[in-house]
């Protein structure tokens, strides 16, 4: 078995253990809270018999480990139970709302990488100059406000005062796009409707940028500080004494070793975005998981809460496995040895 295969298997196994832990944690939190979910679901007018019947149907009258057993059995069949809020399977609800959220996160993630890393590289290359200072202050500002504040400010500036972008929504109502994947970028292309595609792209700019800002700041900060450290290493001095152009030194010799910690933080920021998307979606009326998530939380809809948290955590673990793999492929010390996989 090659070291990379072994690494993949090891990370998958570890993630599975963590995911089981997450399910236990969120399941326990959801069941030990005060208040009877059956009573909440049926409302104050239901009779005691009706509540008791629902309790039995939901296995709420059995001990916690037994309830968890039922939950895992259903989960293995891809069943997360019925949402007491929408009266539909939780999996159907999540499948409906998740693509919009994922689309937003992917675009924001791309912005984070395409803007954050180059900013960090520029800042490090011109370290100590006004360029460096400007980037540092800007990226610190980006980190320093929650994404809903950026969302409100961006909306005010670029949708109201300077009406460059739409105020809310995913796409103009006039476009009727058949639902295939739920990802508008894919569905509009499948429908061959380029106007609808660009309309969707135009709608996503502001919310994605608001979501990406703190990640951009963090990626830029970390890339800069690692690169500045790398600049002190002898191999950079050697490259400089060879007379290599500054641009080549920055992009090849100083940036490469700094890329690994940057990628790690990008993985973590991705996780933060899965949560922060809730805030941005609320501001831009983005029809994603946010409204559903907040609604089910306020209604103590146990199945829906457990399901949503579980899906989000699973996505986070998948992203982190991908990041680990990318790191393994670009870092020869991991790619070529299995000791480092531990």
């Amino acid at each position, binding site marked *: 078995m090659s070291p990379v295969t072994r690494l993949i298997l090891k990370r998958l196994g*570890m993630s599975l*253990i*963590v*995911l089981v*832990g*997450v399910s236990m*944690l*969120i399941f326990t*939190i*959801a069941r030990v*809270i005060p208040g009877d979910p059956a009573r909440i679901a049926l409302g104050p007018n239901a009779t005691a018999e009706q509540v008791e019947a629902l309790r039995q149907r939901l296995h709420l009258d059995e001990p916690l480990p037994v309830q968890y057993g039922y939950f895992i059995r259903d989960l293995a069949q891809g069943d997360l139970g019925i949402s007491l809020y929408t009266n539909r399977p939780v999996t159907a609800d999540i499948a409906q709302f998740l693509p919009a959220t994922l689309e937003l996160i992917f675009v924001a993630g791309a912005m984070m990488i395409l803007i954050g890393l180059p900013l960090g590289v520029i800042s490090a290359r011109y370290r100590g100059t006004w360029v460096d*200072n400007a980037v540092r*202050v800007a990226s*610190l*500002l980006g*980190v*320093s*406000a*929650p994404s*809903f*504040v950026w969302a*409100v*400010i961006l*909306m*005010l500036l670029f949708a*109201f*005062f300077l009406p460059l972008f739409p105020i809310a929504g995913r796409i103009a109502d006039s476009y009727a796009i058949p639902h295939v994947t739920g990802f508008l970028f894919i569905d509009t292309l499948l429908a061959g409707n380029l106007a609808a595609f660009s309309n969707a792209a135009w709608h996503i700019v502001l919310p994605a940028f608001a979501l990406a800002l703190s990640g951009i700041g963090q990626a830029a900060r*970390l890339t800069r*500080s690692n690169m500045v450290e790398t600049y002190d290493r002898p191999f950079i001095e050697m490259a400089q004494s060879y007379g290599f152009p500054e641009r080549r030194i920055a992009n090849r010799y100083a940036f490469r070793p700094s890329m690994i910690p940057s990628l790690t933080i990008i993985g973590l920021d991705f*996780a*933060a*975005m*899965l*949560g*922060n998307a*809730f*805030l941005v979606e*609320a*501001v831009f009326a983005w029809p994603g998981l946010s409204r559903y*998530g*907040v609604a089910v*939380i*306020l209604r*103590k809809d146990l199945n829906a*809460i457990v399901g*949503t*948290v579980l899906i*989000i*955590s699973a996505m*986070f*673990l998948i992203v*982190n496995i991908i990041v680990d793999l990318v790191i393994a492929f670009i870092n020869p010390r991991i790619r070529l040895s299995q000791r480092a996989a531990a």
Partner: protein
Amino acid sequence: MKRTAAILIANPLSAFGVLLIAAVVLGAVFADFIAPFPEHRGAVVDFANFNRAPGWPYIFGTDLVGRDLFSRILYAYRISLLLGVVVLAIAVPIGVTIGLFAGYLGGWAEYVLMRITDVFLSIPPLVLAMSMMGLLEPTLTNGMLAVTAMWWPWYTRLVYNLTRGEKEEGYVLAAEIIGASRLHVIFREILPNCVPSILTKMTLDLGFVILIASSLSFLGLGVQPPTPDLGSMVADGAKYLPDSWWLTVFPGLAILVAVFGFNLLGDALREILGVDQ
């Protein structure tokens, strides 16, 4: 002390951070004397002056029931800072202790403790806090509890990594050889060497706890009205954009100022204490 002063002078941004935080903390502590309308922190209505644009005497304008936004922001800072301090006062000792034991003991203890930490770290922080807040009643105490539950693992991870490095150092070996107990080695030898990193992170985190708490209340899962809170002020005002822009912009900027200040302060502290990033 001399070095600290030198760093602050050499780096005007750090000095600016100190000023920002001094202003925020003093404003919060002495809100009763500074706020032009201290009674506006509660459920007061003054319909004669509702929805006023910034001007005199309402420098940040008034909200939809006529309360002075500037006064309410000062009182909101009070709650935010209190929340930040309480959360860290609980989360840091828990996280640090677990990190020390996992890092120093190794073996099964390390495996179990770090996997539990991983579990908490693999639920996006805001989602974990949201679920807890939703399931509990939204009060200030529960808000602190929810944020604490998501905060300790970060300290576990930080201290765990530091401990793994420190335990190979000569001074730890020396203590072990002369027969010091495990507890002595962990708390008296290793812990003091982790303090600079922990302090730096705590300073940065005071800002980030304020940020997360405001996010919770923005979603309606935090401190409830009429208690002034920066996040819920932004949420309430967002419905009246763009006409009543001050309702969202000033509370939003208030969050930015506090978090930015703590970030600058944390960066300065990192330099003063010589902590690696």
